[in-house]
Structures are given as C-alpha cells and as structure tokens.
C-alpha cells in the first residue's frame, strides 16, 4: 500500500512537471510578442509602395493624396507626394541609426532646398495628416517600448506597452491588440497623460508571398475626430533598393 502511494505520488509529480514543461514551451512573453510584431511590420529587406492617403475631417470632408514610399531596413525611409498638385514633390527623408537621434529632412520644391527638421517636430502632424513623422517611420518597437502587461486571448494578444526611459516619444503608453496569426498590431491606442489620443488600426491585411501587407491602415485622432486612411495601391518587397534612394540628392529630384 505504502509502496503504491509512493509510486503514485511519483507519477503524479512526473506528470505535473511534464505539464509545466509543455506549458512553458507553448507560453510566449510580452516582449517576444513585441519582437514578432516588429518583425512583421518590417516585412522584407526593403519595400517600395504607392499609397493613397485620404484625410477625413470631423464633418466628413475628404481630401485624397497619393504618395510613393521607400523603406530599407529599419533605418531608412523616403516618401514623396505625387498628388495633388499643390504638394507634388514635397518629400521627407528619415534616417535612423541605433543609439543616434533620427535625422529628418523635409524638401519643399518651391524653395529648392532641404530643411532639417528638429526632433521636437517629429511627433507633430506630418503635412496635416494624423500621422507624425515618427509614425511614418518604421517603428523599432523593441528599442523604444517595453511590455508592461500582456493578455493572451483566443485570437489576439493584448499588450500594454510603455516607452523606455530616455526615448524621445510623446506617448505615455499604448494598448496594442496583436493578431496571433500575422503578429500584426491590428489595433493600437496611444495615450498621453492617461487619455487616449490616437488609434491606429489595420482593418485590411493581405499575405503577399511570405510577408503580410498592411493594405489599409486607419489613423484616428480621438480628440479632433479627424482620420487618415492609408491604402496601399502597389507594393514590392526585396527589390534590392539602392542606398542612393535614401539621400537628399534623390529627395530633390524633379520626379
């Protein structure tokens, strides 16, 4: 009898240890989820896209713009407006290096000279949209944010993230809903002083080869009720984009 109890207890412990081990293999930390989000958002070595940007004010008035966007790695982005005519040729070049302040240039064709943008402007509205210069750049989430809390739901992870100390981010925190299938942040709410100020959602996403494409992104300013919709018209990945695309020289070209 005593022997069977010992054997039974031993087996029970063995099963419990096995269960814990299986459970720990299947579990994922919040920071790991964030890393996967970053990897999903930085699809491809480089990206070239034509996008349509629709601005909708609180009264429902719309303004449509067209732009071309180039990204390479996590440190280079060049964007140029194609339409409408009054902003055609306006471009932004963002160069980001680890442990260095981002370098941003704005080019206005009317003045034929690039202008260096102060980092204080990085968090401000870009060309009247609900996106900031910071939003336009690929987010190095793991460099800038840390996960405070995570909920593991059926189809999504719910993350609460906060900026790391010494990072130049205007938000206090963000709530991020991550799709378990694609690891895309299908909805993110940004807070300032405990008040939700901006919501970015990805209602349409599509798998293109091995990459998930953010076919449609909606950015809502929760205070002004204004929103910006970004829709990808055409996208190409891994084209071997030349570094020369991400230069002031290219920014200032006529086309």
């Amino acid at each position, binding site marked *: 009898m005593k022997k069977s109890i010992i054997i039974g207890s031993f087996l029970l412990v063995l099963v419990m240890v096995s269960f814990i081990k299986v459970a720990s293999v299947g579990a994922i930390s919040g920071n790991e989820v964030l890393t996967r989000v970053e990897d999903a958002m930085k699809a491809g070595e480089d990206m070239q896209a034509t996008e349509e940007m629709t601005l909708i004010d609180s009264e429902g008035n719309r303004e449509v713009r067209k732009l071309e966007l180039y990204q390479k790695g996590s440190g280079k982005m060049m964007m140029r407006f194609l339409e409408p005519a009054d902003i055609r040729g306006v471009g932004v070049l963002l160069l980001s290096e680890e442990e*260095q302040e981002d370098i941003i240039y704005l080019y206005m064709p009317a*003045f034929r000279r690039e202008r260096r943008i102060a980092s204080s402007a990085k968090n401000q509205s870009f060309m009247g949209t609900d996106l900031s210069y910071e939003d336009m750049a690929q987010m190095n989430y793991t460099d800038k944010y840390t996960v405070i809390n995570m909920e593991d739901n059926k189809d999504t992870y719910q993350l609460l993230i906060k900026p790391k100390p010494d990072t130049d981010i*205007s938000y206090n925190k963000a709530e991020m809903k991550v799709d378990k299938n694609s690891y895309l942040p299908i909805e993110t709410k940004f807070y300032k002083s405990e008040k939700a100020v901006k919501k970015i959602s990805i209602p349409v996403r599509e798998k293109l080869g091995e990459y998930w494409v953010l076919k449609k992104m909606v950015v809502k300013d929760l205070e002004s009720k204004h929103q910006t919709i970004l829709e990808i018209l055409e996208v190409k990945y891994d084209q071997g984009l030349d570094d020369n695309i991400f230069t002031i020289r290219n920014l200032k070209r*006529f086309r």
Partner: protein
Amino acid sequence: MKTKICFIIIVVIISLLLSSTALADNLNITGELKQGLNFNFDGKELVQANSEYKLEFIKGLGYDGDLYLSFKGIYDNLENEGEFNLDEALLALYFSTTDLTIGKQIVNWGTADGINPTNNINPIDISSFTEGNLTGEPVLAARANYFGENLDITGVLIFDFLPQNLSEMSSYLGEEANLMSNLDIKSPENKLKNMEYALKVGSRIASYDLKLSYFHGWEDLPAKISVNLDNNNQPDLTTIKGSYRQVDKFGVAIAGTINSMGIWSELAYVNPDRSNLNKAGPAQTPLLTTMNKSYLQAVLGSDYTFDNGVYIEGQYIYYENRSIFNPYYRGNIKDKDVKAGQYVMGRASYGVINSKIEMTTLFKLKDNSAVMIPVYSRSLNSVTDLKISSIISLGKEKGEFKMLNDQLIISMETSF
C-alpha cells in the same frame, strides 16, 4: 551672346520636351493661378490687383534625367498690363555619382530660414519677402554635383550675370532709391574673366550638416553711385552713374539639432574688389557707396515645436555692411563709421487641419524698426487655398522699413 546661348538652350529643351512620339508620354504639366487683392491698411483703397500664373513642364528621361520648363506671368488688373516670361528652363542629367544641370535655374544654398548669407548665386526676388520667404531669380548656369561617401561637392558656373532689379528694390532702398531713379549703369561685359563661379563642399559630421562654400562674382547691386557736380557744386542727378564690382565670398553653414531643438548657422566672409571703388572718373564724385573693406554676414537660429503643435523660431542676423537690403551710405562716410545691421527675426505658426496661422517678424536693433507679416491660410479644397495676410511696418519715421506700405492682402491660389 548671352541671349543667344539662352535662346539655344531653351530651343533645345523645348525640342527635347516635344520629341516624344506620344507627347503625353512621361510629361507632367502642372501650374498655379493666384489672384491677389492688396488694400491700404485702412482698407479704403485697392492698391494692387494682380493675377499671377505659373506653368511647369517636367519630362522624365527614364532614370537618367529630367527636362524642366516653367513660365511665369503676371497681369496687373488695375493698370491693364501684364507679362508672361520664361522662368526656368533646364536639363538635369543623372550619372552614377554626378548630377549635371544646365540652363536657367535657381540654386539655393544655406541652412538658415529666409536670410542666407551663403546663398549668392541667384539675385533675390524681393517680392517674395512679403510672403515671408526670400526666393531667388533664375540665372543661366551649369551646375555639377558630385556625391561621394558622406561628401558632396557642387560646382556652379554662371554664364549670365543677373543684377538685382533696382525698381523692385525701391521700397527697401529708402531715400537712396529716389537718388537712383535715373541711374545709368552697364552690366559687366560678357567675357571669360567676368564669369561668375561658385563651389560648395558638404558633409554630415556627428549628425550635423556642414557646408563650406566659395563664390566669385558680381554683387547684385551697384557698388558705387557717382554724379557730376553742377555749377553750384551740387550733385547733378541727371548724370548719375553706377558700376558693379566683383567679390569673393567664403561661407560656412551648419545645421543640426540639440535637445529636440533645431539649430543652424551661416557665416559669410565677403572680400570686395576695392579697385573698382577706388577708380574715380573725371568730374565724378561719389554720391552713394557700399562697404569698401572685407566684412562679415552671419545668421544664428533655432526652432522648436511644442507638443500642442505650436512652432516657434528665432534668428539673429548680423550684416556688417549695414543692412540686409540696403548697403548704401553717402559717399563721404567712412567704412569704419558705418553701423552694422543687426536683426532679430521671429516666426511662429500653428496649424490645424486645413488651416494655418503664421506670424513672421523682422526687427532691426538700433533703429527699433520692424516689419510684421501675419498670414492666415485656409484650404478650401485639395488644390485651392485662401490667404489673408498683412504687411505692417513699425518705426516709420527713421527705421529701415519706413518705405514699406502697410497693406492687407487677400489672395486665392489654386494648383493644377
């Protein structure tokens, strides 16, 4: 000769522009229309009603180059007269590490906002000042840009000296403008030794943009104004003559950020050709002169954007040669007695969706004069803007800006 070169280049460009088997192939046509109404500040008199036009043609040559052609026109609705002129016409060719641009073009150098001592290739389009930003007039030039590893070198050869338009400068030249109303002046002869050229070297060092520049050419305003004396030993303004002189300008410009603030600075060391001013023709006496020794021009500025979107900017401007706009003083005044022009320029703006308000102020220290340019702009639709602005000058009695007329300007601009 200069006109012939200009004409040939324009014909070549237009021919290339139209040479495509399908005219619309890779050809972009854009333009702007602007209608402005200028009122005296009390609103009682319409002093100007100009319709302005701009037409631009851009044709791509694959990835190897672009053709650019633009025309500008203005029609004075009060005087019922107008003009329509070629603005820029250039061919830009792109090689692996070098870009070449040939034709009538604007070359903008410098890092400061609006006032750029190191930007010397194009004469100022003074009419742009009241819009809050100084831009230049196109000149016929050839420009080569070399792009290396964190190094860019630009060389510019200007074929055709374009002086400042004196009649347009009259509001900024003060009393001197009246003296020069009958000025007899000749541009430098079109010889190799009179050609202007410039060089710039740029790099980024520790996240700061650094540019060194050199310009050799002609000052845009005449350096010496002289007259004959009449029988009463008074200046006979019907005999007034002027001459241009060459200068060498060495410049350095830097831009970067410190603690979320943008900062920039430009410094130019100007060395004029003294021999021109020292020549005295028979019976000619100096009436007006400009500084006849080396002098400095400098700008130091910074900007910041607050979390609520308010943008502010401040610049300190130093012009040892008396003034940004008016370098003249009487011929009997010595250089050492000339007071340097010192200014503080401020800009503030705030924008919400479809609307923006901006205020630009240029304040001259020492004489306590200033000009303020508030602007409110509103987007009526995606291509049309309404602008309401004003020009307000302070320190009218003795200040530098006393000749500027206070105005209220309403304009509508549309792009296509």
